[in-house]
């Protein structure tokens, strides 16, 4: 946005139309000399050729545009940039996402459980405002993908590049929580939250889920647990990222409802069963609205004067007219 420090000078713009009239249209204007053809005694003038008239027209337009720009520059144009500055620290939110092969079960339209989870996490983060977010994924092992950061674009890029099965066949819920807790330890946030999304039973890892939950509870970290999936036989299809072979089959398995609710309870969070993409979406948006803290912010206004650029442009336009009239067409006076 552009503002002017001395808008009063803009009144000068009112001088431009009368000047244009006087200079180009007023019958009594000067710069013309009347004379008699009897004195001239040479051949009559031909009308100026097309190109010359065009050149003069561009010169005139350039000149008046230049004058207008110079008047604008006089009014002190400034580019204004507004930035919201938060005065309070947001909540740290860590997603812990299951990427074991069972997440490829196709009971969550349009693709599978994993893609459904990925898309709701994306929606969640896009709706946040100045709360650091992080990402841990787990299969047989758990790995930090994104530390808690305000760099949402980095988070979303990492989330997009996440692939199923990169961490082996297994479900190490305990390790997933433990890694998330480890990376929240140094955080200065007053409130820290882990959101765990899984569809299986804990069957791998050196740390049990309840131990990690206890550690989280002792550090004041709240864990929301979301169990993904329907019961019964579910078609499954996934591609192993290493061998690039595609596996198809029928999957039967459920998450450990009791474990997930215990984890949530010990840490002061909540357990949600997600049986369809729609339900999952609702769960995520309800967590999104619950986990809010009051934020204080102010607007920081930065201005940058741009008069030099405008003066330079106006000057060049006026000089263009000079070159056309005096330089090329040899206008006198």
């Amino acid at each position, binding site marked *: 946005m552009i503002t002017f420090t*001395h808008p009063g000078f803009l009144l*000068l713009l009112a*001088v431009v139309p009368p*000047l244009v009239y*006087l*200079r180009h249209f*007023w019958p*009594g*204007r*000067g*710069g013309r*000399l009347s*004379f*008699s053809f009897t*004195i*001239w005694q040479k051949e009559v003038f031909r009308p100026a050729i097309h190109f010359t008239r065009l050149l003069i027209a561009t010169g005139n337009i350039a000149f008046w545009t230049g*004058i207008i720009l*110079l*008047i604008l*520059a*006089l009014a*002190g144009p400034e580019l204004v940039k507004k*930035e*919201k500055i*938060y005065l309070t620290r947001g909540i740290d939110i860590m997603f812990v996402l299951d990427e074991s092969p069972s997440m490829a079960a196709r009971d969550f339209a349009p693709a599978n459980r994993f893609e459904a989870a990925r898309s709701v996490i994306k929606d969640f983060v896009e709706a946040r405002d*100045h709360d*650091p977010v*992080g990402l841990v994924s787990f299969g047989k092992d758990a790995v*930090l993908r*994104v*530390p808690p*950061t*305000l*760099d*949402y674009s*980095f*988070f979303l890029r990492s989330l997009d590049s996440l692939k199923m099965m990169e961490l082996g066949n297994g479900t190490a819920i305990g390790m997933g929580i433990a890694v998330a807790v*480890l*990376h*929240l*330890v*140094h*955080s*200065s946030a007053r409130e820290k939250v882990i959101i765990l999304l899984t569809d299986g039973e804990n069957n791998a890892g050196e740390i049990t889920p309840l131990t990690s939950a206890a550690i989280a509870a002792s550090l004041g970290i709240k864990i929301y647990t979301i169990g993904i999936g329907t019961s019964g036989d579910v078609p499954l299809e996934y591609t192993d990222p290493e061998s690039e072979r595609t596996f198809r089959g029928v999957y039967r398995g459920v998450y450990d409802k009791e474990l997930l609710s215990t984890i949530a309870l010990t840490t002061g969070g909540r357990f949600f069963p997600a049986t369809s993409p729609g339900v999952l979406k609702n769960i995520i948006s309800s967590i999104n609205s619950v986990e809010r803290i009051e934020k204080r912010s102010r607007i*920081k206004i930065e201005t940058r*004067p741009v*008069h*030099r650029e405008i*003066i*330079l442009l106006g*000057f060049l336009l*006026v*000089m263009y007219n*000079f070159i056309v009239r*005096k*330089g090329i067409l*040899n*206008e*006198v*006076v």
Partner: protein
Amino acid sequence: MILHPASLWLLTLLVPVMAVFLRNFRRGRYELFKIGGEWRRHQLYDVYFVKGFFSSLVFMLFIFFTVLSLAGFSGGKKRIVEVPPKADIVFAVDISRSMLCDDLPPSRLSRSLELVKGIISRVHGERYGLVVFKGRGAVITPVTEDYDALMLGLLSVSPSMFTSKGTNIGAGLLSAASAFPGGEERKRIIILFSDGDNLSGDLESALKKIKNKGIDIMVFGAGTVEGRELKTASGTVVKDKDGNTVIARLNRPVLKFIASFSGGRYYDVESPDSLNRAADDITSSLSSSKVETVRGDSYTFYLVMALLSIFIFLLIRIFPWKDVF
């Protein structure tokens, strides 16, 4: 004080402009008598001379004053700029092959990474990010309070992270600049580690962009001026097309230029006290408010004079004098 002294070169335009006016005046005089007739020669010449003289004069005054307004004279107003007490610091580490040279044992790269760790342990309570670059830059660890994540990021740094060639410091710095999250008033510092060898890309325009964003750059030069032969991944010495061994040297002038351009300091990775100096510089820059001279730009007067001149120029042309032209 003149803010943009280079603009004053535009004053040289006055010479060709004057030449054009003189040329046109001479030619015009000849035509004038042919058209106007000998019988009113005297009267025509008076008007012609007066109009010609004054319109040339005011046009040149227009150029003169416009150029002065472009140069911008500062009144030297001072204001106190409060430096935010917290900082975001992004480390931009060069991972080109030359950073593996062992003139700083075990290698320029590992010595640089040691310094990164040193700075983190010396400067507390800030947020850190990690960017590596070669022909292009990439964020490895986004700006975070999570030091462990940064340590993990440091472990993974090696020249094999990218296949791109060359050392585009500009691209690396721009990646680092884009890694700062907004929304908070924090001092923003990039700490660059490079040997400045085999440069590519447009460094200066990148530096300007970063300066406009108000980001400071501190520079660590890794390597020795004597240099060391460059080796490929398989350990063979790299030769140029004439068969000479390629030596990767520390390009100190370029790195010092980056630091001075961005208001930061330059340190040698080699020197044992650079860690202490850098850490002290960061801490002291965060705990003080500084007085800064701002442009009390007084271009308005000159621009008013310029517009006045060009209006007079127009009026001389518009109104016929002595009923002649």
